[in-house]
């Protein structure tokens, strides 16, 4: 049986494609990962004698701009998916390129932020606050990089692969991951910068 036909059959069996269920399961495991780190942050902060308020130690305006950037990239991602469903190749390319560009912009601003910390001799080892800050935001950046690789791959595939019956499902899966990364930041930003 051909792969697309097999994938369609799986859909009729359970109502959900293997790919979609697989991505949701993966996201569930990633939720556990970030939940553990958030919990560690809470335990460390509550147990510490002193802890700086976010705005005292971090660049809130730059992080706010980054929040706008990432939310916009989520919108362009869902619009890229919409264009894929509508079979609009040019539209898909446009919005996927925007998504990747915004993701790269997020990383650029992050590198400014990290660079400023390093220039002030603030490293992960400097304090527990810094350790928590760099670990959480660093892991989040690693997830952004992974997402950019996947999105870049889909953009590159879109030439011939756009007509493949599984392509929309792939874009949907990549979208689910990208929105998850956005949701992590939606919690990370207030938790680290605004409290």
């Amino acid at each position, binding site marked *: 049986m051909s792969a697309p036909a097999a994938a369609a059959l799986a859909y009729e069996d359970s*109502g959900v494609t293997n790919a979609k*269920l697989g991505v949701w399961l993966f996201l569930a495991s990633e939720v556990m990962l970030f939940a553990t780190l958030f919990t560690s942050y809470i335990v460390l902060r509550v147990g510490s004698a002193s802890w700086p308020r976010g705005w005292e130690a971090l660049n809130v305006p730059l992080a706010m701009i980054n929040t706008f950037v990432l939310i916009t990239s989520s919108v362009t991602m869902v619009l890229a998916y919409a264009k894929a469903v509508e079979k609009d190749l040019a539209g898909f390319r446009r919005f996927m390129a925007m998504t990747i560009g915004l993701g790269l912009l997020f990383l650029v601003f992050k590198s400014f932020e990290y660079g400023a910390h390093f220039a002030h001799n603030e490293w992960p080892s400097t304090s527990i606050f810094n350790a928590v800050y760099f670990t959480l935001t660093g892991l989040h950046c690693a997830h952004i990089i992974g997402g950019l690789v996947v999105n870049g791959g889909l953009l590159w595939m879109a030439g011939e692969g756009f007509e493949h019956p599984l392509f929309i499902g792939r874009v949907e899966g990549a979208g689910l991951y990208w929105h998850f990364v956005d949701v992590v930041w939606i919690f990370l930003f207030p938790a680290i910068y605004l409290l």
Partner: protein
Amino acid sequence: MSHPPPNIKLYLAIFATLMLLTGLTVLVSYWHLPPAAAIFVGVAIASIKAGLVVAFFMHLKGEHKLIYYFLGILAFTMIGFLLIPTDFRLLRVLLMHSGAP
């Protein structure tokens, strides 16, 4: 495989809402509320934003029941882990020997 037609107007409305809520959460942070209040407001606004992204961008609203079941298992697992008691005798012995306060 059916992919329902996307609702662009809805996506853009959610986009505007998310931007507004982001501005709101930063505005509130400038009031330098005491930690308890700041946490409550911050988590509340973040939950609304995350809820919008998960429900509409990730299409969880109207998703197949099977996905809901798996996410239910996730919620159960997380709560289960949080309810594991942490004052084990062995842990206390180890901490005593490590020199932790």
